[in-house]
Structure formats: C-alpha cells, structure tokens
C-alpha cells in the first residue's frame, strides 16, 4: 500500500503530493506510517505528534478527506473501507485529488487553518475562538472549605463535553467554518455549553449570551459533520440546539 502525503513549505508556489510505499502491518496507524515516511523516505516531513493514544488531540489531519486523529486511525481498516464517514460537502473535501482508495491513503492538513508546513497547521485561530467564549469556571458561590457537592446524575451530561480534547477535527469538518471564517465553531460552543450546564456555576443564561452573536450559536446549520468526526463523541449539535432553545425562551419571556 501507499500513503500519498501533502507537502508544502514557505516559498513553494503550490503544494505537491509525495507517495511512499509501505507494508500495512496489523496495528499500523496513520501516525506510524508517517514515522516510517520520516525514518525511511524523507526526514523533512512535518506533522504534530505527542501521546499516540488518542488523548492529547495534537494530530488531527485530513485522512481520505475526513478529519481524523492520525494516531487513532488504523491503516488496514481504512483500506478495507471500514472507516467510511459520510460528510456534508464543503470545499476542502471535494475530490480534487486523484487517489486509489483501495491502495492508497491520502493524508492532508486539517482544513480551515493556515498551513505552516506539510501537515502542521497554525492552531492560533482555533484557540483564539476557544478563548473568546471565556473558558474558565465561574462559581456561583464563594469557595467552601471542602468540595462543592454534585449530584452524580449531573455528571454524564457534563462528561459529554468535558471529554473534548480540543483537536479541532470538528473545526476542520464544519462547512460553516469553511464559508464563514469568523464562526466560533463546534468545539468552542461545546466548551461554552459545558460551563453553562455545570451545576456549580449557576450563572445561567448570562454564560450562553457570550455566543449570542451571529458568529456564535446562530451560525450553525446543523450539518452534523462535527459529531461524525469527533474522536471523543462530543455532540456540539445538541449543545447548540439546547442553547438556542434557552435563548429563544428567554427572549419570549422578556
């Protein structure tokens, strides 16, 4: 099998694609394939890596036109077609590159963020939008001596959102982030909702109002790509729908 890898660095007019042949041993991940590329073919290849266990969120990239974590994606299952994910169309996933998906894996940088080199994108904008939603715990009451009590039944819903690893796969999959570069995006909105539903916060609707702006809750068109590509099953769509419902209800009450 082969991997076909997007290559770009400062000074190049257009990106190019390098193809590298390797053996798809059982257990080989895309990240593993990239390390083989680096070790045996061209050591100038650039890609992010850290935990290699799908928890740190640093290696999201476009693999066969789907944003995924390179470390979590098994080459064999990809070639078997087991990992197909149907996505709502947007510019970056148009089939503008020829590749034989039975023999080759196409590896490109995560869309909607500027490419620094090869598969490394500048995450600056993603984290700027994350910071825009004021991602910090704002407790309703003063600090108690011990822990604040929490109903264990409130945890599962919170965990849906605290599980986010900020890999930006959703950001790179969102057709709205393609058409509106200002859109806060699924991860930032899901994070905001995580603080809103934290029973220790009780800042209520004020929290949600941070994103009560055109580039916030109201920009989403419910394509649902974010949920489909999330490696941690975070559901931004549910957060967005519920937030809108709350804000609309509050608008009517006034």
């Amino acid at each position, binding site marked *: 099998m082969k991997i076909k890898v997007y290559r770009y660095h400062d000074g190049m007019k257009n990106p190019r694609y390098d193809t590298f042949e390797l053996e798809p041993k059982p257990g080989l991940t895309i990240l593993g394939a990239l390390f083989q590329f680096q070790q045996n073919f061209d050591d100038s290849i650039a890609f992010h890596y*850290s935990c290699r266990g799908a928890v740190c969120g640093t290696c999201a990239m476009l693999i066969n036109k789907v944003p995924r974590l390179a470390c979590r994606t098994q080459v064999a299952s990809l070639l078997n077609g087991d990992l197909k994910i149907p996505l709502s169309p947007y510019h970056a996933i148009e089939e503008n590159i020829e590749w034989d998906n039975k023999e080759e894996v196409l590896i490109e940088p995560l869309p909607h963020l500027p490419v620094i*080199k090869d598969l490394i994108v500048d995450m600056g904008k993603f984290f700027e939008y994350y910071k825009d939603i004021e991602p910090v715990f704002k407790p309703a009451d003063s600090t108690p001596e011990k822990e604040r009590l929490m109903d264990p039944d409130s945890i599962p819903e919170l965990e849906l959102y605290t599980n986010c690893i900020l890999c930006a796969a959703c950001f790179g999959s969102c057709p709205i982030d393609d058409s509106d570069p200002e859109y806060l995006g699924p991860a930032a909105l899901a994070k905001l909702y995580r603080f809103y539903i934290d029973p220790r916060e009780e800042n209520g609707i004020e929290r949600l109002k941070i994103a009560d702006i055109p580039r916030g809750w109201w920009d989403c068109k419910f394509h649902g790509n974010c949920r489909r590509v999330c490696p941690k099953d975070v559901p931004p769509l549910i957060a967005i729908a519920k937030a809108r419902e709350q804000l609309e209800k509050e608008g009517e009450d006034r």
Partner: protein
Amino acid sequence: MGVASTVESIHYHDVIIIGGGLTGLRAALQISNSGLSGALVSKVHPLRSHSVAAQGGMNASLGNVPGDDGASDDWKMHAYDTVKGSDYLADQDAVEKMCREAVATVYELEHMGTVWSRLENGKIAQRPFGGAGFPRTCYAADRTGHNALHTLYEQVLNKNFPFYEEFFVTSLVKDKGRCIGCTAIEIMTGKIHGFISKAVLMATGGFGRIFNRSTNALINTGDGQALALEAGVPLKDMEFVQFHPTTLYGTNILMSEGARGEGGILINSQGKRFMEKYAPNSVDLAPRDVVARSIEQEIREGRGYDGGYVHLDLTHLGSDRIMERLPGIRQIAMDFAGVDPIKEPVPVQPGQHYSMGGIDVDINGSTILPGLYAAGECACISVHGANRLGGNSLLETVIFGRLVADTIIKDINNFQIPDILPVESAVNDVEFKIKEVMGREKGANIFDVKDEMTELMFQKFGIFRNGQTMKKGLNEILKMENKLSELTPNNKDLAVNQTLIQFLELEGMLKIAEVVARGAIKRKESRGSHMRTDHPDRDDKNFLKHTIIGLEDNNLNINYKPVTLGMFEPKERVY
C-alpha cells in the same frame, strides 16, 4: 523589568517555567497570582503534555469512602502506604508534606472546576488502588489527568500568562554560579531565542521514551534531566524506573490500575488467576513493581500468550460499570487492539511507565544551582523512592507545582536582575552548535540509532536486571554516544525541522540512559522497581541511600546521600 536587549529574540521574565503539564501550569498560576512576571516555555502546546494521559486518579485521604472495617482514612496512613510502597527509599519529610497537602489539593482542583466523579451523596468519589490501605484515589472516570490539565490550562489562560509554545529548550544559562535563564529553538521558525530570568523552574516530565515499550507520550524524552545534568546539577535515583503491569499488547498504551481497582483480574494462558501466588493478601492490587514482575515471570515460565502477554479480565464487571468508570480504556482497547473489554479480556504486558528518579532537589524544590528549581516527574524530591504508588504522581505534580513556585516567590527577592551578555553568548553558542550539526556529512540514520537505544534499554535495563548484561548494555550505550557526532538530519532547513529536534532529544536521552545504567550497575541489591537477579534481596546496610550522579569534566560521578527516615522504620515489604 529593566533588561533591554538589542537582540529581538531575547526575552525577560522574572520566572521561566519549562514544561506545560500539570506541574508547570500549577506553578504558572501561583507565579501569576504573586504578581511576578513569568512565562511558560514548552516544546508542545500545554494541552498536549503527557499529564493529559493520566487515567486512574489522585490520592488524598478525604475519607469519602469508608475502609473495610468502617474506619476512616488520614494523611499518616497515606504516608505509610507511600513509604512502604517506595521500599523505604522515599524521604519521609517530603512524603509527609505531600500527604498532608493532598486533601487541600484535590479540593483546590474541584474549586477551579474540575469535574470529579461523585458518590451518591455528592462528594468526590474514591476508588481502591494498588498498595493502598484505603479507597483513597479520587478520580474523574478514567480521564483524571485530562480533566485536571484542562482545568489548570483554563485557569492559567484566564490570567493571560505568556506561553512560548513549541519552543525546544537547548541549554540552561549560568552566570556567577547562578542559573539566569535558558536558550530555546522556536520549532516553527528555527530561530534561537534567549530567556533571561531570576529563576528557572524545570517541569519537563519523565524520560520514559528511552525504553521502547513505554506508556509515555512520544515527547517524554527526559530533556529537563539532560539540561540539568549539562548545567552541573546532579540527578538522583535514576535507576528506579517503574514498569506498569498492564499496558496494551502491541502499542503499550496504559490500561489504568483503576481497571484492577474496580475489580479487574489478571489471568495467564492456563486460565489461572496467578496473582494469588505472588501477593496472597493484595492479589491483583499489589503495588506495580510486584505485579509487573509477576506477569513477567508468568510469561518467562511459559504461562503467557504467544508474543508475551497475559489477560486483564474485566468482563465480570459488566457493561454498566465499565461504561461508567472505565470508558476511556474501553475506547483505547477497541481502537488500538480491536478488543471490547465488556466482551473479552484485554491482552496486556508490562511496559515502562514512570521515572521515580530525576533532578536532585531538596525538600523545597531547589537544586544545588541557585536560581534553578525542579518539580513533578522531572524532579526527585523523593516522595516515590524505589517504587511509586498509583495515584501519587498526579498528586505530586499539582502540590509541588504550587509549593516550589512558593519557594521561588520567597527566594526571588534575593536575586538581582541578571546580566544579558551571558544569555546572548549562550544564544550564539547554540547557533554555532546547530550550524555544526547541520553541516556534517551524512552519517547513520538518527531514527535507527534511537530505535537501537530504546530496544537495548528495555532488554538490558528492564524489569529483571543483572550485573553482566547491564555492563554489556553500558558499553553499547557508550558506543552509541560516540556515534552521535556522525549524525545529521538530511533536511537542512531550520524551520519546522523535527528531525533536528529529535537529534537534540537523542543526545540527552543517551546521556540519561548512561546515568540509569551506571546507577543500576552500582546498586547491588533489589529494591522496589530495581530488581537484580544476581542480588535478589534488599540490602539496607549498604544501599538505604540515594544515588547521586553528576557530570564533572565530562565524566559521570557517582555519590550517595542518606535517606530521610523518621516516621516509619524500614521493614520487610509484604503484600
């Protein structure tokens, strides 16, 4: 401020923190709250730090869950378990400090918004862990590190604390017997920066990646320990390397001790629960060194599966409990081994997990070099001794991130603003060195040498060690160190040159490997994680002491330091 440089890439901050994991972030918060100017330098974005991967939990004697006979927990029992777990090599004053502060530390994270798992009564949930006399480990499902790291990142970000992300530190700068900053490569541009500061805190994590079978993130290459050594600061107890009993066969990704805390059991290829034989009382929840050796012995005696693994069976826990308490490791087992722990046992084998040793610091986190401090896994304040208990590492990071920052805040008034010239000249030195490395003729493949080293370290300095093989191993390490001067990246661009970064990491890793080897060869006893088949017993008469290895005139010197006892007298360690 008061320091101006004509060189645009020289930065001044009162305190430089190197490393953005739990220790670095907790220290950053403390420095920020104190009003000092600080900055955090990390080779990755802080959220990509290895702390994020910690699964099982954080020990603190909250006493939210009663013990077997209804008794309640306290810090002294936590200290006792920690000291016994350490095989009596931990410094008991440091252990006392940690265990006394533990409760407040768990509450502190809760107050900052960490979502801990909860009991029916709403209090923070606690689970049993290896080597602990109480269900003492506070947890957030099996994503405790992730939850805590995100919380601290949120807090530090909220303070607008400066981050230098993806900066690889290349040297510590000394002047007039003090540490006055560091140099670093900005990875994305290849530019060399200088940092001037009154104090530098190392919070760079462990060196697990000198071993090929490791649970650690690929970034855990011991950079901080190597930098300190190079700056003349000795390393302590580096031969004590923890092998975690249950890492996923194939990738060695961690399968949390929480899995056994929740009732998971180990089974050999004959279908037998073998831990009853090795630890009749604690069984599967004996400490990690004991369980790792037991698994290895089963495998060596032919009772493992082909390829060298045993089974971690969770199937009897049932789907609900697994989904609630262990969702993360279920996902990992499915993603990386194609095994659903609800339906079938998980193939596991021991793998390197933690570095008990590290930069030698006193109880305040100070090194022998004024202005240089260290905390967390990169340091050895010695709360873990010869074997760390599960749940004590997250605890150490957050507590000592805070306390060592407090030491700095106290000391800093005594430090003058440093001169800029030594930092500028250090930047020049690094530029010169990199030019030399990049200008070499093409030699051996950097990655092949790294693979050779990591394989060697696991084979010769792994779970079972003996003098003869270790001496052969040391010779091979020395040969590899000699080979370093022939290595060079093929890629000659400085911007985003990850091969150059890996070369610089490898230089440090080989030095660390040599320190581990020399410490292990000289320690002719078995204690905690350091098991020698040629010296199978603990020898308190000759080795109840810390190994201290420093670099003098380019040679590694070995010395020893006494262990601080006090609360608990060394006894035979039985589980």
